Every structure is written in structure tokens, then in C-alpha cells.
């Protein structure tokens, strides 16, 4: 009998435990930037300001789903990284707090939200990533045109991201639409689909299979492609002559942030010159949005790459339409 009571009491106890108070002098963050980069960024931030950072890493979709669900009781103060169109989608859901960081003037307006909901901290163009052994075996040159990927030699050899989950994949569609026009872009993708082995859920998901030779080639953000190359795998990076669009990595403060003062300090810091210099020095493969920092990695030298300008608001507007069209026309 008494054992049953103890049991009932302990069940209730578990049911009633609740959140402890948040300590001060802290910053809580979700990072869409990969963990190995985010840990360095936040370490440097703590070293500079003495503010302790708790963070977790999520893909852009997961992070956004979380902050929307947590809207009434935000668990974090800021988001680090992630494509600008994710932030635009978040603005629709009213989850961001506008703030214009101290260093904003040195960042071109096209890399910032027009109402200061987010600030761009780096840009990442798309790039082709191809297995070097595959090229040698087939006697091919690295692809230098979007049409090169339609070559039957790549049959069942392409892995790239699924548009439903990945910002990398929607970026691919934006590039194609800007290069070819809307209908032609989807015609092209239908042809490309013949060579697809698998659409991966995350933008970087296909890079490892390419590295290990499980498949031949794919289209990625440069940050993921360079990363796999730096790990020592036999891969080649190349750009199409028709050009590529690029993603803007943003950062922003959540509405109702519990450490608002620290969140603002953080935004000032990621917009500063010392931060831009920091990511260059640490070989974190984003190209700084500030133009007063020199990029040293030759792989990030984009002077020979044709970059296509795409308006972020347009991306946010078109995203759902293009994803629906992709499902119904390309993969059907």
C-alpha cells in the first residue's frame, strides 16, 4: 500500500518538475552554421566579451520550426548562420527582433534585412563537386557547364539535395531560373533527374558519397564542398560558365530574447571587422560580407566566377511555388 503511494507521489513529482531560472551573463543560441565552426565562433566571442554561450546546432528547417514553436517562450536569444530566406520566412511568423548592429554600415545593404531583422555575416556560392577518380576513369574534365551534368556518363551518378528540406537545393533552382527562365529551368531539371541517384535531405548529404566514390558529382554550397576537400578526399571543385547564385549566411535576434543586452553585443560582434578577419584566419569557408577584409584562400577567390544576384525577398516569395512544382514535375 505505502509503496503504491510512494509510486504515485513520485509520478506526480516528475510531472511537476519545471524550469529553473535562467542565469545572467549568458547567451543562448541555435546555430545553423556547422558545429565545428560555431564552437570556434562562440569561443572567440566568449574570449572577447566574457559572455558564456550555450548553443545547439540544427539544420535551417529544424531551427526555424523550433523557434516558431517556441515563440511564446523563446529558449534562445540569437541564431547564428543559416540562409537569409530562412530568416525571411521567420519574419512572416513574427519571431525576430529588429536590431541594427554597430558595424552594419560596412556591410552592403543587399546583405542585410531592409528592416534590420537579420544581418548577413558571410556569403556562399554554389559549386560543382566531382569525384576525381570518377573523372579519371571516364576520361572526363570537371563539369564547367550546367549542361555537362546531363552527359549520360553521369547516369545514376548524381547526388544533390532535396528541395523540401534543403536551402542548398532551392538555391539551385533560383540559379537555374535566373539563367534559363522558369519553364526551361524545370525542363532542365527533368532531364537532370535522369542522372540522379538520390536526393539527399541535407545540403551537404551528397558530399560524402561523392568523396567515397559511391556517386560521381553534385551541386553544393562552397562551404560544404571545400570542407570535404580539406578533409583529404579526392574531389574537384568547378564552376559553371553560365554562373551560380549564392546564399547569404545571416544572424539575428529572436523576439522576446531573455538576454537581450548580450544578444545585441553578439550582433555587434558578428558584424565587426575582427569577426570577418577571424573567419578568414580560421579557414571557415564563408566569404565575409564586409568588403574591408581580404580573403586569402584561393578557392574562395570569386573574381573568375560569374555570380548571379538574386533578391532575398524574391527567394522567400517563390520558394513554396518552386518546391511544389519540383515535386509535381521533376520527381513525379
Amino acid at each position, binding site marked *: 500500500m505505502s509503496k503504491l*503511494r510512494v509510486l504515485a507521489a513520485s509520478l*506526480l513529482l516528475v510531472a511537476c518538475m519545471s524550469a529553473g531560472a535562467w542565469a545572467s551573463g549568458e547567451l543562448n543560441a541555435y546555430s545553423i552554421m556547422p558545429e565545428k565552426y560555431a564552437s570556434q565562433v562562440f569561443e572567440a566571442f566568449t574570449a572577447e566579451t566574457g559572455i558564456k554561450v550555450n548553443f545547439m546546432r540544427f539544420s535551417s528547417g529544424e531551427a526555424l520550426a*523550433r523557434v516558431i514553436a*517556441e515563440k511564446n517562450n523563446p529558449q534562445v536569444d540569437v541564431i547564428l548562420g543559416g540562409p537569409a530566406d530562412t530568416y525571411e520566412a521567420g519574419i512572416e*511568423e513574427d519571431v525576430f527582433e529588429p536590431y541594427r548592429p554597430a558595424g552594419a554600415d560596412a556591410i552592403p545593404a543587399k546583405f542585410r534585412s531592409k528592416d534590420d531583422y537579420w544581418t548577413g555575416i558571410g556569403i556562399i556560392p554554389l559549386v560543382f563537386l566531382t569525384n576525381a577518380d570518377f573523372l579519371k576513369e571516364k576520361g572526363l574534365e570537371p563539369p564547367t557547364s550546367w549542361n555537362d551534368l546531363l552527359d549520360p556518363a553521369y547516369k545514376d551518378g548524381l547526388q544533390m539535395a532535396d528541395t523540401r528540406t534543403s536551402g542548398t537545393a532551392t538555391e539551385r533552382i533560383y540559379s537555374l531560373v535566373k539563367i534559363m527562365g522558369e519553364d526551361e529551368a524545370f525542363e532542365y531539371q527533368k532531364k537532370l533527374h535522369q542522372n540522379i541517384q538520390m536526393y539527399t535531405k541535407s545540403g551537404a548529404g551528397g558530399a560524402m558519397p561523392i568523396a567515397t566514390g559511391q556517386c560521381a558529382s553534385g551541386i553544393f554550397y562552397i562551404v560544404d564542398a571545400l570542407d570535404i576537400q580539406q578533409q583529404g578526399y579526392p574531389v574537384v571543385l568547378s564552376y559553371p560558365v553560365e554562373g551560380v547564385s549564392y546564399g547569404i549566411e545571416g544572424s539575428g535576434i529572436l523576439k522576446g530574447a531573455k538576454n537581450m543586452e548580450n544578444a545585441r553585443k553578439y550582433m555587434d560582434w558578428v558584424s565587426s571587422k575582427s569577426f570577418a578577419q577571424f573567419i578568414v584566419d580560421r579557414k571557415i569557408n564563408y566569404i565575409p560580407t564586409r568588403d574591408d577584409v581580404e580573403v586569402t584562400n584561393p578557392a574562395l577567390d570569386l573574381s573568375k566566377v560569374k555570380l548571379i544576384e538574386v533578391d532575398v525577398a524574391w527567394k522567400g516569395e517563390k520558394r513554396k511555388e518552386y518546391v511544389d512544382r519540383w515535386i509535381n514535375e521533376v520527381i513525379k
Partner: protein
Amino acid sequence: MNQRSAVSAFKRDPALLSALAAIWLSLAVFVLYPVVRLFLVTFVVEGRLSFDNIGALLGNWYDRQAFFNSLGLAAAVSVSGTALGYMYAFAVTRLPVPSWLKWFLGAVTTLPLISPPFTSSIALTLSLGPKGILLRLFGVQSFNFYGFWGTWMSETLTYFPVSFMTLAAVLAAVDPNLEDAGLSLGASPGRVFRTVTFPLSIPGIANSLLLLFAASLADFATPLVLAGHSFPVLPTQAYLLITGLYDLRGGASLSFLLLLPALAVYILQRAWIGKKSYVTVSGKAGGRSQFKSKGRLAEGAILGGCLALTLFILYLYSIILWGAMVKVWGVDNTLTSENFRYVFTHGRNAIADTLYIAAVVTPIGGLLAVLIGYIAQRRRFFGNRVMEFLSLLNYALPGTVVGIAYIIAFNEKPLLLTGTMTILVAAYMFRYNAAGIRAVIASLHQIDSSIEEASASLGASAGRTFFRVTTPLVIPAVIMGMRYLFIHCMTAISATIFLVSVRWNLLTTRILECMTELQFAQACAFSVVLIMIVFGATALMAGLTRLAARRISGEGGRG
């Protein structure tokens, strides 16, 4: 026991009433309430009830295809997984194999269960995917791994140990005297199996089919990695809608479609095993005899099958171990301890948090399983069916949906739980206790209630009878359930990926992070550490199960 005697039982035992109240309260708060909140978000559009969301789904060819794919996959996995599980359970409980071999078979089969599903998916892809090691070895040119086949293989490998654990507990409780009786009356071993052993294991088989069907129906991690675009399934579709298109309503509506088949299977299972008597522990039997030979050929085939599958599993996991120990998999095969150093520095907090949560959930979950199983099977209270159904509901729902429902439900006062450990503990306890509850119910099916009635007629209270008679008899089933619960605390991801917070992080989330960030070696190292931890803990609990089973057959049989 009818309604009136239930009332008198309450008068005699107020403890029973408070236990019942505690269970109903916790089920209401942690199962019913989140689902209702999610239901409201899904079906209430601008203050009015609306089925527009569901209608839109049924008109969409891709979602319709996902619905039928989910059913087909779940059926295939539940049948193949149960068949493999039965083969193993039969070998371990009925064949004269040396005890070290039993231990070995049992230990290896837990490997797929104690590692997050996406870990074995990687090993399977490297073996059977495009240009896979095994395909090259056997010269197979075209094998479409992505889609149904890969997902089916991976899920069967992941879930058949659940079936093995369920069926081994049931088969171990079937008294071999009954089989001996059949044999000594001149029946062939095959006929005894068909007419005695197999029918007696039907509650376990039904149980296993239900668990596996539900598990496959709700699994999102495996199809996420392996199904690709050509084989959409509902949980993955729901996840993609929620995280990819920020469409919470659409994702929630899709998962409500999942509830229909889950409900259907549950009702089918009740109708199938609810009517027959499977009492084998009656307190009236004599001592146990030795197991008799089942015929050389059949024994050889069963053992051969078990060994082949065991070797295949070992092979898959050696790939993961190798990946954790070398610098760059397949390129630079230099041995290094760098990956493990990473795990114990960057992953230290996640390891500590995960262990702490598992240590809290497991014992409480075990007690809860006994209570719910006992009340549902032995006491005929009003609403028992509803209680049993509720206790299994979170298990049938896709994890992503449970996660989202929890965030919606527990993000405001008075139940402000997001970001705490409690929300993780509750999610695990009410989502993964299904195996434990079903096991308790299945083993209570086999225990004649006259044993408890004897205790009651000798004047013992319901509480005393429960703790002194019923509990010891179901302990193997409870510990089995606790093992399963512990394993899930360590490996589950679908629900908790939404519930982890900057303060409470989990090992599985870290592994998935490493995978999506291409830190393959670190992902392998994390998996190896996780598997070591779970292996140690489950070996301990398996030892306890054996000890308890021995006590029952020793004392219960002769007592």
C-alpha cells in the same frame, strides 16, 4: 471482476485508487493533452472545425503514395522482423545450444537495437548501396538499394531484436512439459511445434507484429536516410513538411492519417488473442523437464540461419568500428584516437545528459509498465481499454509529431516545460514504454489469476498481492521492458530532436549532427561509445532477467 466488486476493491484498498488516479493524470497530461492541442492546431481554422487540411492531402498523389508505401513497408517489416525474431527466440529457448552461444546470439542481436538506426544505415549503404563493398565482392551490377529494399532491410535489422526479446520472454514461459506430453503421445517434433509450441506463442507473435508494425510506421530516421524520393513514407513526409516547408498543419494532418492503420492493427490484435486461454503458469504444474531434440535437420537450419544473420550484423558493425578508428574512411586508413578524443571533449555534456535522463526514466518507466499492464489486464475498471490505448498512443504516433505536439502543449504556463529535463523524461516514458506494457500484459495472459485469488482469499490486500505475487511473476517481462526503454533513451531521435535544448542535449542528436556535417569518423566514434554504454547496461539487466526467470520456474513451479 465486475463493476460492483471493483468498487468494493476500492473500499478495501485506497492505494489502488491513488495509483489509478496517478496513472490517469499522467496519461491525460503527457499523452492526451498534447495530442488534443495538436489536433486543434490541425483541424481548427479560424475558430471553426475544418477538414480542409486532410482533404488537400488525399487529393495529392505524392501523399497518397506515401500512405500506401507506409502500410506496405510496415507490413513487410513486421512479418520479416517477427519471423527472424521467432527464429532467434526458438534457438535460444528450445535448442540445446551451449550457454556461451546463447549469450553470443543475444548480445549480437542487440547491436542493431542499441545503435541509432541511421548508423547502421551508413554501414548498409557502404555494403549494398551503389558501388558497395558486398556488391563489388559478388559482382552485382545493378541493385536499387535506395527506396523500398534498403529501408526494409535496415528496419528489419533494427527492429527484429524487439521481436526476439518479446518472443524469448513468452517462449521461456511456455512449460516444456506440454511439449513433452505431445512427444510422448507419439507426435512428431514438427507436429508438436505446429499444435503446441506455436499456438502457445501466439500472444507473443501478435504482440511482436503489433510492435514492429507500429515501430516501422512511425520510424522516420531510416527512410530519411535510405528511402530517397522514389519511396515516400508518411513520417518522413510529415517531417519534411514541418521542417522543410514550415507547414505544421500539413505535417500534423499527415500524421493523423498514420493513426488509422495503427488503430486498425491494435483492434485486430485485441480480437485475435483476446478470446483464447494461454495459461501456462498455473501453479499446478510439476517440475520442469529438459528440452527434447527437435530433429537434426530443423535444428541445423535454424542455427545456421541465426549464425549467418549474426555474422552479417557483426560485419556491419565492424565497418562502424573501423570508421571510428581511422583518419579518413576509405582514403587514409591510419589508425588514430583523435575521433574518440573529440567525443570525450566536445561530446562530454551530451553523454552525461543522456545517461542521467536514461537513469531517471528506466526505473520509473518499469514501475509504470507494471501498474498499467496489471490494471489493464487484471482489473476490469471502467475505461481500461481507453487507458491501455492511451498508454500506446504516443508510440504509434510518428516521433516528429509527438515532439511538435509537446512543444506546442508545454510551452506556456501552467505547464511550462520546454527546455527542461522533464519534457525529455516524459517524452521517453510515454512514448517508449509500449514494449514494457505489452510484455507485462502478454505475460499476465499466461499467468492464471487463481494464483492471485489464492493470495486475496488468504486475506492479503490488493497492494500486498500485487507486490508479493503478481510483480515477481511478471518481473522478466518488466525488466525486458526496462531494457527496451533504456535503449530508446539512448538511441531515439525522432521525437526528442525537437525537445533537446541548449541545456539538455542528447548523444543521438550529436551523432545526427556529425552525419549531416560530414564528420563521419566522429559519428562512428560517438556510435561506438554509445553502443558500449548501452551494451554494458543491458547486459546487466539481461542478467537480472535470467535471475528472475530462474526464481519463478524454481519456486513458482514447485510452490
